[in-house]
């Protein structure tokens, strides 16, 4: 029985009077890849932001391993340092080279010496296949390369888990593959990940577990075979058929 890395219990989140998340609970085990799917506007991205408190949650509790991180007082910076976050729009630091983007965390957050941080950064850049781009600035990289650098930036902090917020949604179709490839590799290596994604192929082949969210709640959760072959809810089946239909049309 693998150790539980993250436990989320009854999270609620509202913006103004609109309740976006209406009570969500789940667990993530060490080494697991959990993919969250569902229609736009159901609070998937908000959920990720609430987990590492880039957004405040209104109600609910979150545990990272044995520590409740939704309870104050807690050093949220220390918590965030151990939870990686990969953004839809990459958000690489524009004034820093790829290498500096990756090593600034170890240096400025963990207080590592430059030499040690550089070694780690180069290893992580190699892991995402971009060692040769280390001196390039973000604007000199393609979208796919930028996203891979941002994955390396998350990895360099040696996080307990990484949250991916629609990591391929801002990419041109021909660049999506290289990012998904890196993510699949990480999943195989045992990196714990929560991925919000519309990439059904990736969800199907890489996820250990899929969460289908709709209307701010988890409608259904289970292994990919079950979700894709025998969804319990009609809503899930409808969503999946629509998505596959779209993908089919794209393929044409």
């Amino acid at each position, binding site marked *: 029985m693998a150790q539980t890395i993250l436990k989320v219990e009854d999270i609620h989140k509202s913006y103004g009077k609109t309740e976006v998340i209406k009570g969500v609970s789940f667990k993530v085990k060490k080494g697991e890849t959990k993919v969250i799917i569902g229609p736009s506007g159901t609070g998937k991205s908000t959920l990720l932001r609430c987990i590492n408190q880039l957004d405040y949650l209104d109600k609910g509790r979150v545990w990272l391993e044995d520590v409740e991180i939704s309870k104050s007082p807690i050093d949220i910076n220390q918590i965030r340092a151990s939870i990686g976050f990969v953004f839809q729009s990459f958000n690489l630091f524009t004034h820093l080279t790829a290498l500096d983007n990756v090593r600034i965390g170890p240096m400025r*957050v963990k207080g590592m010496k430059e030499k040690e941080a550089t070694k780690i950064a180069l290893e992580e850049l190699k892991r995402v296949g971009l060692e040769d781009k280390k001196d390039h600035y973000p*604007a000199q990289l393609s979208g796919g390369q930028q996203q891979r650098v941002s994955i390396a930036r998350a990895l360099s902090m040696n996080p307990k888990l990484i949250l991916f917020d629609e990591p391929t949604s801002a990419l041109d179709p021909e660049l999506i593959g290289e990012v998904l490839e890196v993510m699949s590799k990480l999943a195989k290596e045992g990196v714990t990940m929560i991925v919000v994604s519309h990439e059904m192929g990736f969800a199907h082949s890489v996820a250990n577990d899929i969460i289908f969210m709709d209307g701010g709640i988890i409608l259904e959760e289970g292994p990919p075979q079950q979700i894709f072959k025998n969804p319990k809810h009609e809503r899930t089946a409808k969503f999946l058929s629509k998505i596959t239909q779209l993908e089919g049309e794209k393929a044409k």
Partner: protein
Amino acid sequence: MEEKLIDKLLLIGKSVPSLLIGTLISIELALAFLGFGFVVGIPLAVGEVYGNKFVKYLTVLPIVEFFRSIPALVLLFLFYFGASSLNLNFSPFIAALLAMGFRSAAYQSQIFRGAIQSIDVGQMLAARSIGMSKFKAIRYIILPQALRISIPSWSNEYASVLKDTSLVYALGITELMRQGRYIVARTFGNAILVYVVCALIYFLVVHFGVKLLDFLEERYKIPGYEIKKVTTRA
């Protein structure tokens, strides 16, 4: 006629040393005002963008509004004579530094605020997501980008402050303008000539300072984020 011209040239020649001493004082004053304005302007800008309501509305904005709304010469007199009426004995230099330094801080804070606010919010989010405190994120991610963006507008501020040092002659500081006045007072009928030379000196100092800032802008540009050069006729 020829004798007169030679006289004038001789006068300029004799005036140059004292005018250059005055120029040096003017440059020192400008650097002091700009330095003070920078050191105070950055926290003002950061406070305005990231501070709470108390910081923004009760500290930053009153300071900025006060120093932007009052003419420089009035500020100089307020600080110089105001201090002595409060039994504080400010030297003319200290009074000038406070008046013109805070004034520049007010203007510089608005340059930096605009630059900070032009940076994508994703930069702050990403910095916080790897565990940086707000302070570290501002120090290592936001300000390095904001300062680069600020250079072109800052060179405007540099030119203004340098030229405004001519006002402090009203407090008796012997900068370039006052040295010029001395020469005009000592000789007779040379006002235009002396002030033309002063104008030329101001022009050259501003010109080379702006060139230096242009160089810094080029040197520290972020690839892909250069100030766009207009290349088409559109």
